[in-house]
């Protein structure tokens, strides 16, 4: 075994690498030092994390982990100094990079990739974990949902002292609470239930016996109030609920958060039921960490948006509304939110197939784009798989003469803006790397700050 380099020296050297790579303009330098540290001395992560006097908490989910973690940060920030990987660098290397910049932080707050969670949890030994949901996502990269769920079960079994904050509405995630200290959250508002499970619903068969669950209410994908008619496996009792939910289209949402600590009305600036889930999870974790109900409400109400997830950018006399889409469940919620607000007549949809987007683009055929098609005058299909995306909409019922196929993101953005009347808003739905590229293009024109500047 190689003797560890003295940590202070190592950290200083690696921070310098980060600064250099930032100067060199290599994508913000957010993970390069972490990658080096991870390579040179994997154990350093454990040692750095152990310096946090209040320990660490981890946030993971297929959808909403960036937003939930940012909400937790907003709630806790007034009272605790936090180290947070806010730019979404959520693999071991990204977390290592954040640990290199601990400064005087007291608490570590880490958003973690679903597949990286076991490794990160083993090293960091978190005091609490927020586990939001597991949806089908990038099968070419993560494998089947059951595999990720099995890894999570194993990881939780080896963390007997950590407090789990889990979404009880997700059968796989809710089940992790069994035999563990846990706080279970969920939605309790059948008025908002969908009439039927969506096409993309994943965990719809009983995880014990394989029988299809009966849903008293299905909210987002397979999230809801389920019970197996054969063996009785059901949603666990909820400790924290969201009730009396009001959705105000794209303008926000409100709900009553009811917890053992008390009840509070929360008004969110973010739209959609999926963001109510994010806020509910974040609030539950914050309560577990000892935050007061007023801190929770105030933090959630201050929160505007996590990087690139839901963003409005002024571009001259027009506005860009950007909603990240990356898997069927998330895209369905984006579509639902758009249609319940002011359904757009022009949209730019960007499909890339880089590794971070998923090489396999078949997921777009599992998204219910049809409600969007009804109101569309014009679609600009863009990204490295623009033609495939155009086909999805064409076979979804959009006349081909209404579709512009413009693979270049910059040209597509300009085409979309040209089709948007002055004073109007252009809706853009990009996959992950397309979102990064579009943000860069817009930033290059001076309309928004680059994320590593705002995330510092």
């Amino acid at each position, binding site marked *: 075994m190689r003797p560890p380099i003295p940590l202070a020296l190592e950290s200083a050297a690696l921070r310098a690498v980060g600064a250099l790579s930032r100067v060199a303009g290599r994508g913000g330098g957010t993970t390069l030092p972490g990658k080096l540290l991870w390579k040179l001395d994997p154990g350093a992560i454990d040692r750095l994390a152990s310096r946090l006097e209040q320990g660490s908490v981890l946030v993971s989910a297929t959808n909403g982990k960036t937003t939930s973690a940012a909400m937790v940060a907003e709630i806790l920030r007034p009272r605790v100094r936090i180290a947070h990987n806010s730019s979404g660098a959520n693999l071991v290397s990204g977390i290592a990079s954040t640990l290199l910049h601990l400064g005087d932080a007291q608490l570590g707050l880490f958003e973690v990739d679903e597949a990286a969670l076991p490794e990160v949890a083993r090293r960091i030994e978190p005091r609490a974990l927020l586990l939001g949901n597991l949806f089908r996502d990038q*099968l070419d990269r993560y494998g089947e949902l059951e595999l990720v769920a099995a890894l999570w079960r194993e990881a939780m079994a080896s963390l007997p002292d950590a407090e789990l904050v889990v979404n009880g509405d997700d059968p796989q995630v809710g089940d992790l609470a069994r035999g563990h200290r846990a706080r279970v959250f969920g939605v309790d508002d059948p008025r908002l239930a969908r009439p039927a499970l969506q096409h993309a619903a994943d965990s719809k*068969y009983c995880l014990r016996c394989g029988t299809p669950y009966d849903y008293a209410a299905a909210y987002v994908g397979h999230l809801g109030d389920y019970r197996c008619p054969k063996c009785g496996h059901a949603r666990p009792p909820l400790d924290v609920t969201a009730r009396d939910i009001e959705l105000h289209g794209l303008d926000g949402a409100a709900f009553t958060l009811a917890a053992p600590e008390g009840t509070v009305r929360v008004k969110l600036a973010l739209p959609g039921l999926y963001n109510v889930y994010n806020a509910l999870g974040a609030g539950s974790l914050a309560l577990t960490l000892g935050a007061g109900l007023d801190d929770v409400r105030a933090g959630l109400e201050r929160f505007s948006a996590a990087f690139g997830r839901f963003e409005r950018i002024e571009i001259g006399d027009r506005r860009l509304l950007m909603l990240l889409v990356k898997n069927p469940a998330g895209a369905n919620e984006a579509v639902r939110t758009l249609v319940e607000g002011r359904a757009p007549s022009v949209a730019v949809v960007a499909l890339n197939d880089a590794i971070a987007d998923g*090489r396999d*683009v*078949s997921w777009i055929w*599992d998204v219910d784009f049809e409600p969007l098609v009804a109101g569309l005058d014009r679609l600009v299909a863009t990204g490295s798989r623009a033609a495939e995306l155009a086909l999805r909409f064409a*076979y979804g019922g959009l006349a081909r003469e209404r579709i512009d196929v413009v693979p270049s993101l910059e040209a597509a953005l300009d085409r979309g803006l040209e089709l948007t009347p002055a004073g109007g808003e252009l809706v853009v739905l990009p996959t992950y790397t397309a979102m990064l590229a579009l943000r860069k293009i817009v930033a290059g024109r001076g309309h928004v700050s680059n994320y590593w500047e705002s995330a510092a």
Partner: protein
Amino acid sequence: MRIRVGHLYPDYLNIYADRGNIAVLAERARLRGHELDVHAIGMRDPVPAGEIDLFYVGGGQDREQALVAHDLVEKEKPLRDAAEEGAAFLAVCGGYQLLGRFYRDVAGDELPGIGLLPLHTVAGQRRMIGDVLLDCDWAGQTMAGFENHAGRTILDEGAAPLGRVISGFGNNGASGAEGCRWKRVYGTYLHGPLLPRNPWFADHMLAEALAHAGGPTELAPLPDELERAAHEVSAQRARARGGKH
């Protein structure tokens, strides 16, 4: 003409956008004045003997595939009868494996198939993932799609593959063959989904179904510009993998 489609286990086997394939068949039928009439055939549902022109079987996660395998065996007789009297079948990924004789997992346990296609599948350690390009010389066409499977499928001696692998793994990464066809039964690992990117094959399946329905099998050509563009991107991705792997 009404084309009757039996979609087997749509609630269980739908992992790789199988409804995209169905949507393409429906729209391309409609544009030629035909109507696609899709029936779901689920667990414990009877197979309407003689009333289906095209059976569709999609792919599922391992768990879902195991759930349906035993039910499918119960349906073997009517499905075999339908295939023998000329009904068309399109089976993708997991559905393709289930039309073979069996699937043997890493522990050596066997999941039964119905043996409609002359093949069997054995689980391997490494998943075979990526874009694939095939040469389908029997049709004078290429086929582009995406594969993601741990199973190695072995065709019986003399069985006809769907295509020869230009780039990608195919049935097992070694034989150079992908998919299988017998009578009007077609099986493949390619999703993507398959039919939007390969309109010639969508039309071929429609023609096979029309032949069973007793209708005219000629289909007027469609412009297919987007389809060709999507095929080309997918084919480029496959070629960029270089060689077979």
